């Protein structure tokens, strides 16, 4: 993968990731959000956040399989776009749907399981967005990677949130669940190998110590 194709891919990503926001902005002025715009905008932002989260998770396996090392450059912006839409989704729910009524908000979070998991997923995304800067990556060192494994939990909770809120047609949430399962499963092999390599290395070190 050349630097140029990565640049092209980046442009494509920015345009696509901003498309839902542009669509919402356009619809607000041109009236294509329908007669229940709050519901429509909630759905579009939620769906965008989930799709972007899955795309973020797809970067590593695709990079590994296609040997496109530079693809890693897409991971942070994709993740931040996912957070951007999750934040919009959360804000719309809190401000427009519930009008900042704290009692309604807490009742929803405590008593409605699909909101409980959706809210948890959003909260877990916050530290990931905050620590996505170079400074934080340097400061956290190896712990940064450990922290960012939270994204596996967030994505899982996000898909559960989607599955639990639909009334009858579960085909899309199930498709998302299938893709997420594949993305998570694709990490098991490499993770296993890495562990084996590390064990072998430490065994070698021990051997060297004992013979030396």
């Amino acid at each position, binding site marked *: 993968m050349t630097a140029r194709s990565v640049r092209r891919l980046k442009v494509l990503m920015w345009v*696509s990731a901003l498309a839902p926001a542009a669509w919402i902005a356009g619809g607000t002025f041109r009236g294509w959000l329908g*007669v*229940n715009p709050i519901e429509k905008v909630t759905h579009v932002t939620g769906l965008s956040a989930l799709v*972007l989260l899955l795309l973020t998770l797809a970067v590593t396996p695709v990079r590994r399989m296609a040997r496109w090392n530079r693809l890693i450059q897409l991971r942070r912006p994709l993740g931040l776009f996912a957070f951007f839409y999750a934040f919009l989704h959360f804000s719309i729910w809190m401000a427009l749907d519930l009008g900042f009524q704290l009692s309604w908000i807490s009742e929803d979070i405590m008593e*409605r399981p699909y909101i409980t998991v959706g809210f948890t997923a959003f909260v877990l995304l916050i530290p990931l967005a905050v620590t996505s800067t170079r400074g934080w990556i340097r400061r956290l060192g190896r712990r940064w990677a450990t922290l960012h494994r939270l994204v596996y939990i967030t994505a899982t909770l996000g898909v559960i949130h989607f599955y639990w809120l639909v009334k009858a*047609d579960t085909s899309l949430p199930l498709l998302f669940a299938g893709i997420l399962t594949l993305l998570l499963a694709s990490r098991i092999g490499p993770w296993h190998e890495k562990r084996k390599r590390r064990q072998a290395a430490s065994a070698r070190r021990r051997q060297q110590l004992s013979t030396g």
Partner: protein
Amino acid sequence: MLIRRPPDIPSSEITPERVFLDRRSFIRHAALGTAAAALSPSTLSGTRHTAPQDPRFSELESELGEPVNAWTEITTYNNFYEFGTAKEDPHRNSGSFRPRPWTVRIEGHVNNPGDYELDDFLAPHRIEDRVYRMRCVEAWSMVIPWRGFPLGDLVRRVDPTGDARFVEFTTIVRPDEMPGQRTGVLPWPYVEGLRLDEAMHPLTMLVTGVYGVDLPNQNGAPLRLIVPWKYGFKGIKSIVSIRFVEEMPMTTWWAANAREYGFYANVNPEVDHPRWSQARERRIGELRRRETLMFNGYANQVGQMYADLDLTRWI
């Protein structure tokens, strides 16, 4: 990447926001014929209805003084899974549905069973317009000027026998014209039911029109049920059979998920849906949620029918 395609609405059909926000006075003041046609999103297809020409309907209010929802709201935001699960699907996908000719079958424990051609079926009844609140189980609501007649008039005409304790309604099955029926999202045909006393209640309506014109396909043409104190899904659409039965009918949503939807489905702000609160609702066209009323505001008229019923158990 999610890229939602905008709906196929030519720019000439899109109502300017200023006009949309001020639609009620716009309808009041504008020259009627042209204004109504310009506002209508449903002039796209010959089989769908143009916007109603009679401006008096948009002036109507419920008995609580709530203004009726706009024609566009009532005809573009529908739950009619036979045409798809998205709210815009029924409006978008019902263009090839043919609501005529139509036959309604009256069957079961009844003295006058038979297949009735729709016009013969309707002929003996006095058709009237009534403004009702419609509360969906999904916690949104509208105020709608329906046109139809009391179901009780029909019940008396077809004369149920002593064995009839419930009425079961069935929607037509036409997968060729109803794309949703080619999916398994719900078991088809859609079935709904009422207790006989609910069916006889003067508020219960068989509906043939809205806003003074025949029902658009997406609203359940040519014949649907309206039970204003129950959640909207009880209002079965495109009815082809009305059967008088002894046992409580197994209705579609009840069968699909008995924990979340029951046979009664009375609007009740105190009994939440397992997944969301039923205490509040969004009236389409309003920003803030409003409190949901017991039996959707019809408690004085219907409450006594359920005096002996445990409403937390019989959802």
